[in-house]
């Protein structure tokens, strides 16, 4: 049984302050009204922001930065200088410890999904080392953040794993549940934490029921259970709606870049002007971008915008779920909808292609 404690808010705040003194603590903070980013904080006040909506970029940036050096090389590596030594130097092994505070359920779900992809067969130590150095203090959502999110429909509202600690707001105190061994240990260190009494248990149960109720209509954002998506998409390859969505789409890649479960990247070499030092780096990439699937000779396996857009949705809701035990690679966080200038909304796309072109449901 995982531990559950009750921590008065001021005690929790001093706990966060002490964490921030020892290392980096980051949480969603408003850069402008309604525009949140994960940034360094020194206390727990970010948890009290009632206008919160998912951050511009997901917390993934702490495990897989937008741009990162894979390794450096020295020595004249250039092909014009033959016969010289090349040294490779891996990036720093041990990463700085970091605490992610106030991670919402959708992002907790996403972190678990990217963990799974980076652990698959070949371990990506760049991601996983940073991931190991991170502590996730998650926070339940009692109400829907905005009209774009559809987490409950994608099954990512209820967080069962992927956090070290999970907070639920009891008003003057936090209910803090441990999700991992690391979380258990941390929980023991919080001064002023007490065991949950019957009243607190009851309140927690009420909140859970209330949450269920509050999110009831969010489930309706999809016309069918999310688990049906792989099958539905399997039959919708030639749906004429793809063309229509493709005509609207600008192929700008914003949806990919802000998505917490997109993890594709491009790899580039850079060298200094003396041609003696260089680095290989990777950068976030997006499957909606024109050259994503282009190969030598210029052949492009997804030449048109509609093909690329379709690929993105298939990857989220068919290809990766088929690969990973049915796990949906869309959490319903709504980031791509908020960023898309032509309002392409996955839930709406899925509902549209689930209908037979004639109109009746498939």
């Amino acid at each position: 049984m995982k531990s559950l404690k009750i921590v008065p808010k001021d005690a929790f705040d001093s706990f966060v302050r002490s964490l921030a003194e020892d290392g980096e603590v980051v949480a969603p903070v408003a850069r402008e009204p309604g525009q949140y980013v994960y940034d360094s904080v020194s206390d727990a006040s970010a948890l009290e922001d009632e206008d919160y909506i998912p951050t511009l970029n997901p917390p993934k940036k702490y495990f897989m930065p937008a741009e990162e050096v894979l390794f450096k090389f020295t020595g004249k590596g250039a092909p014009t200088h033959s016969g010289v030594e090349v040294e490779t130097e891996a990036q720093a092994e041990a990463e700085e410890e970091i605490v992610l505070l106030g991670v919402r359920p959708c992002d907790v779900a996403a972190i678990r999904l990217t963990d799974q992809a980076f652990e698959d067969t070949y371990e990506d130590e760049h991601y996983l080392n940073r991931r190991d150095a991170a502590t996730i203090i998650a926070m339940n959502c009692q109400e829907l953040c905005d009209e774009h999110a559809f987490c409950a429909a994608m099954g990512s509202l209820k967080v069962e794993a992927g956090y070290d600690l999970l907070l639920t707001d009891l008003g003057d105190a936090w209910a803090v549940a441990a999700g991992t061994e690391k979380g258990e240990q941390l929980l023991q260190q919080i001064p002023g934490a007490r065991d949950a009494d019957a009243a607190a248990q009851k309140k927690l149960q009420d909140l859970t029921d209330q949450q269920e109720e509050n999110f009831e209509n969010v489930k309706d954002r999809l016309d069918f259970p999310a688990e049906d998506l792989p099958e539905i998409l399997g039959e919708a390859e030639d749906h004429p709606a793809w063309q229509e969505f493709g005509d609207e789409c600008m192929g700008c890649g914003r949806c990919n870049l802000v998505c917490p479960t997109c993890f594709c990247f491009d790899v580039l070499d850079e060298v200094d002007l003396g041609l003696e030092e260089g680095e290989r780096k990777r950068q976030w990439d997006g499957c909606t971008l024109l050259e994503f699937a282009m190969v030598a000779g210029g052949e492009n396996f997804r030449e048109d915008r509609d093909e690329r857009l379709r690929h993105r949705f298939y990857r989220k809701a068919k290809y990766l779920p088929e690969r990973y035990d049915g796990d949906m690679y869309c959490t319903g966080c709504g980031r791509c909808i908020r960023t898309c200038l032509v309002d392409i909304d996955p839930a709406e796309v899925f509902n549209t292609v689930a209908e037979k072109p004639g109109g009746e449901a498939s």
Partner: protein
Amino acid sequence: MKPRVGIFSFSSCEGCQLQILNMENELLDIVGAIDLVTFREAMDPVARDYDVAFVEGSITRESEIPMLEEIRRKADVLVALGACATIGGVNAMKNKFSPEENLQEVYGDAGSEYYDTIPTRGIDEVVDVDYYIHGCPIDRTDFAQTVTSLLLGKRPYTPNFPVCVECRLKENVCVYDRDDDEICLGPVIRAGCSAVCPSFGSACIGCRGYVDQANFDSLIKVMVEHGIDEEEAKKKLRMFNTGNAKAQEVEA
């Protein structure tokens, strides 16, 4: 042997050459890696043969054409430097008037005999161009990257994705989500500038030219939703992009 490099200039503000002079940290490395034989803005000329020619500026006069052709003949590699050369740049905004109108309206009767003027165009409308360094002005790291690529014998990296990509990588608040009335061209404009304009509170005005497969219809719709009319939207798209073939797509 170090490649002999010439830097040439046609109609422009010379800001791209200046960007090269402004690479203070790298300048000595550049001078060490290449043999700079012509760079009028910074030095007296020493030689007339070169392997690589960087050409700044657009073609606006009949008399510039043979000069450019001569450069092309001599250079093994010709690189267009900056928006004037790559896409026509702001110079091409004058193309909305006919050459006759320009002369008459701007110079009056007195001036017309001194100047020949033709519709402004990027240099690839006149000669073959091997590589492009985009931007008004060029980005300094992009120039360095191009030089190292040429030294390594690889194709310089030219992104074919829009500014939005770099803007999201930097986690900017999108111009369209800010409370000013700016209109951003980021979704159809080629990246490579690290989204510098949106990052400094402004909007992308399109200096690096259009990406391939730009969806003008959708962006114009977006711009109209954000409060400008269609004509104004097209005008914005054309600010830097009148002098190249793709400009016609905006009209269509």
